[in-house]
């Protein structure tokens, strides 16, 4: 068995490789597909109906086999459909362009197969333990989506899920970035998926008083009153830049930096000074070797809760400098889709890569009444052209912050081929 060597330079030092995006896929309340997500958001359309961002266009029987539909919880169904789109987008259909053992899959979720747990609990209560399905555990387990994608596409490298509530999807991307940067993998299928629009899910989040009473997702607006729960998945195909170049792949963008910290403060409330969140953003910029002057756009976590949006605003100002922060457009996808929880970071990364490609910044929908604690440019009203600061490829930060205090910033960059 021949094993690959760690990437080193002539002097024997570990070399950090560049990592590019070659495929995008999404299932969101805006529809099936990455294009539907981005284009409808740019057009100012909202996927939230009656206080929830449900994937009403998603018909599993049209997109998956009978066996896949039966064996996969809804969160894994979203993930597999989004992965299929991303893999086709990358031109990986048919044969993998990389050694399967050098191809990873990290598919995150915040909660996992909650609908399956609820269904099996009904069976337990009504018919007894002996009638519970043998497919219950394999459907509900949080690594089910990663397992399903690996089996369908023969991915034999590191395959697992990561779980960090609303930062899960971003953590998956960051983890895969590190694997490829430092030579543990050459490519990865990464993302997040969530499907918690169940009575149990609504009841639980409602009990926390985290959900919007008005059913409106209005990030950074003074009238915001909580988040709107959504569901879906976002998936990206990542490859080393050298590998993508060697096979002549179309490069859609670059994952240039990743920073991750924790508040160590409170189970649900963000630490108000934003110290740890600030550091996550700073780490992502340092990883990419860029400064605040090169940031053209911030894709905010922007949940529409009082606490998050104020703390995130503080963190953006601290990380980029108040002067610079005021000149950078900041928008939240959750104004269009609601909060995709464990899928949010991944679906928002998909939308951010498309933003950098199209160079059109989608708006924070519904924003109208300024809040003194949220005093940045939140791109109200409608989409606008992305203005690059000085000759470099367009560059964005995508933030994710989670219950538990987990902060992730991704530094995403356009790619001039």
């Amino acid at each position: 068995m021949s094993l690959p060597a760690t990437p080193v330079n002539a002097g024997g030092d570990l070399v950090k490789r560049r990592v590019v995006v070659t495929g995008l896929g999404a299932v969101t309340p805006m529809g099936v597909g990455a294009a539907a997500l981005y284009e409808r958001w740019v057009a100012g359309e909202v996927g939230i109906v009656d206080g929830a961002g449900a994937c009403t266009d998603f018909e599993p029987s049209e997109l998956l086999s009978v066996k896949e539909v039966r064996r996969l919880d809804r969160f894994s169904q979203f993930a597999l459909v989004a992965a299929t789109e991303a893999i086709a987008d990358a031109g990986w259909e048919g044969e993998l362009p990389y050694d399967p053992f050098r191809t990873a899959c990290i598919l995150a979720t915040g909660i996992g197969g909650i609908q399956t747990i609820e269904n099996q609990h009904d069976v337990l209560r009504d018919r007894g333990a002996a009638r519970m399905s043998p497919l219950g555990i394999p459907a509900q387990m949080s690594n089910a989506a990663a397992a399903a994608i690996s089996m369908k596409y023969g991915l034999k490298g590191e395959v697992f899920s990561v779980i960090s509530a609303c930062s899960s999807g971003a953590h998956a991307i960051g983890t895969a970035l590190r694997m490829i940067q430092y030579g543990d993998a050459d490519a990865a299928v990464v993302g997040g998926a969530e499907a918690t629009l169940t009575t149990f899910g609504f009841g639980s989040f409602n009990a926390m008083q985290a959900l919007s009473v008005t059913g409106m997702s209005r990030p950074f607006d003074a009238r915001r009153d909580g988040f709107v729960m959504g569901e879906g998945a976002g998936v990206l195909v990542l490859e080393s830049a050298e590998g993508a170049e060697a096979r002549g792949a179309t490069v859609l963008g670059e994952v240039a930096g990743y920073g991750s910290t924790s508040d160590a403060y409170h189970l649900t409330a963000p630490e108000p000074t934003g110290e740890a969140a600030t550091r996550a953003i700073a780490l992502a910029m340092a990883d990419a070797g860029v400064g605040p002057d090169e940031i053209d756009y911030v894709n905010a976590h922007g949940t529409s809760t009082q606490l998050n949006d104020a703390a995130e605003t503080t963190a953006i100002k601290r990380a980029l400098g108040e002067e610079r922060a005021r000149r950078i457009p900041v928008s939240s996808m959750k104004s269009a889709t609601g909060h995709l929880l464990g899928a949010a970071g991944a679906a928002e990364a998909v939308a951010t890569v498309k933003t950098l490609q199209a160079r059109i910044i989608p708006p924070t929908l519904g924003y109208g009444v300024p809040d003194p604690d949220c005093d940045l440019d939140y791109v109200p009203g409608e989409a606008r052209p992305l203005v690059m600061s000085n000759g470099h490829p367009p560059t964005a930060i995508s933030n994710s912050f989670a219950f538990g205090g987990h902060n992730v910033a991704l530094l995403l960059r356009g790619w001039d081929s």
Partner: protein
Amino acid sequence: MATITTEQVEARVVETLASFGPDADQITRESTFEELDIDSLDLVELAQVVEDDYGVVLKGEDMKELKTVGDAIDLIVSRAE
């Protein structure tokens, strides 16, 4: 209990297996579970249906020996007698 016929069991087994993925017209007595892509998890589900419908309890060791759809039908009919 009324007599259970092989035809009844066959129809029920084919219907159940078809709900797991393969086309019903693809399923014959000679079909192997392998070629139908029916695995051990599917067979546990089949056993639950059989127990509900015929009161026949099939354990893991019973199922392990089954190679074809016909094997399963014959086992169920013999246990139901």
